[in-house]
């Protein structure tokens, strides 16, 4: 059985949405499957569009590095970039992750 990672999304309005996600999925896939508003993910996961921006406030148990393509695209997100900014399509849940918390920005375009 796949390892389950509890993911908490904090929406623009402050609501907390908790999802039991499987390792191997990206945060973007988890958010889209959960029908979360505020994640557009136009390109579907290729780090081409910068419309799946999230502020990842906590990853417990494992780290996830920002890649080169993601690094470039993060300069072009609609909401301001911070140290917590990630393209959620590039954050893949791993077996070592215990939990993830991410805040959804107020806009993607």
């Amino acid at each position: 059985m796949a390892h389950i990672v509890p993911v908490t999304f904090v929406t623009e309005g402050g609501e907390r949405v908790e999802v039991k996600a499987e390792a191997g999925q990206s945060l973007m896939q988890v958010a889209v499957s959960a029908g979360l508003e505020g994640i557009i993910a136009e390109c579907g996961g290729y780090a081409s569009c910068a419309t799946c921006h999230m502020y990842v406030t906590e990853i417990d148990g494992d780290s996830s590095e920002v890649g080169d393509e993601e690094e470039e695209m993060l300069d072009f997100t609609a909401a301001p970039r911070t140290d917590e900014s990630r393209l959620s399509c590039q954050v893949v849940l791993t077996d070592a992750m215990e939990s993830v918390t991410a805040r959804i920005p107020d806009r993607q375009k």
Partner: protein
Amino acid sequence: MDISLDALNQDPYPIYEHWREQGGAPWVPALGMYVVPRHADVVAVARDLHTFSVIDGDSLSKQIMGTTMNRREGAEHMRERKAAEPPLKPRPVQDHWLARFQALADELIDNRIEQGRMDLVRDFSAPYAALCLRELLGLDGVEAEQMLQWSAALIAGSSNYEADPVVREAADTAAEEIGELVDRAIELKSAHPDDTVISSMVHSPHQVGVEAIRSNIRLFISGGLNEPRDVCATATYALLTSPAQRRRVAEDPSLFEVAFEESLRWTSPVGLLTRRTTAPATVGGTEIPSGSRVGLLLASANRDAEVFDRAADFDLTRGKTPHVAFNGGAHICLGAWAARAQVGRVALPTLFGRLQGLELAEPDEVAFRGWVFRALPSLAVRWER
């Protein structure tokens, strides 16, 4: 309801509305395909490349242009796309191309400004789109007129279902001439790398062959020129006929970028993309057999009342607008970032900033045409000299 090619070419929007109300994916005998009119279904189908494949047999466009990346799947698609993509990413667009686009736009306006009027399509948006594309690709020395003629010949050839031999020959000639020019550019850029798409493909670690470069440059000329040309004219028309929206951009020129996106939604330059099912599929409750042609109606999805209030209005205050004019998923428009800069950050602010008192010269003559590609064939404007 009259659902003929003629009616679609005149004004597809009432027909799109009819199809959205019908729901699912209506079978349209006149087109020989199922059409997908609703926003949510278009988004879902565009992302399911496994069931709704871009590979569509021996199409006319494949016969003329060769196999291009928009008709490839998986790793092969990604290899060609990644080879061409680096110069089209937002960083090089901002740091390198933006100033170049501005220089091209200013030169075209300099040549016209004393005359006080022009056909915005013929005299500005068409040559501007052609010259920007020429620079992006790295086809040094080609005239704008030649780029436009090639583009039109390839587009006509790709939809030449009547098998008109004259149309086919013009398309084949264009494809051959582009191929020869690309070969020369490849030779040049092999020795002297630069910031262009051809150079990027030549030197890419993704290693694409000469034939792939030729085919994809044909694709970019056929599919990367009329869209920026048409959205520029459409957005200008929309702003000139919406005084309230025009006041907003005058007060805050950063809104020209919003005007660009809203124009893409309001009258999408590409109305239709086709796919072929690889297995039985269900779209919005309609069962579609394996091997069927399916048309994604991007322009219809962008007027879906489920997603957009007062969808027929051009409105800069929509906020978070997930239009699908660039398509979505792995085949999302490769030129999107360049187009945003070209039109939203350069062409529109330059036209409205430099041409004082810009207005329609012949408002009664303005008429959109087409549905697969929808555009203003001409737009007469004037300004204070």
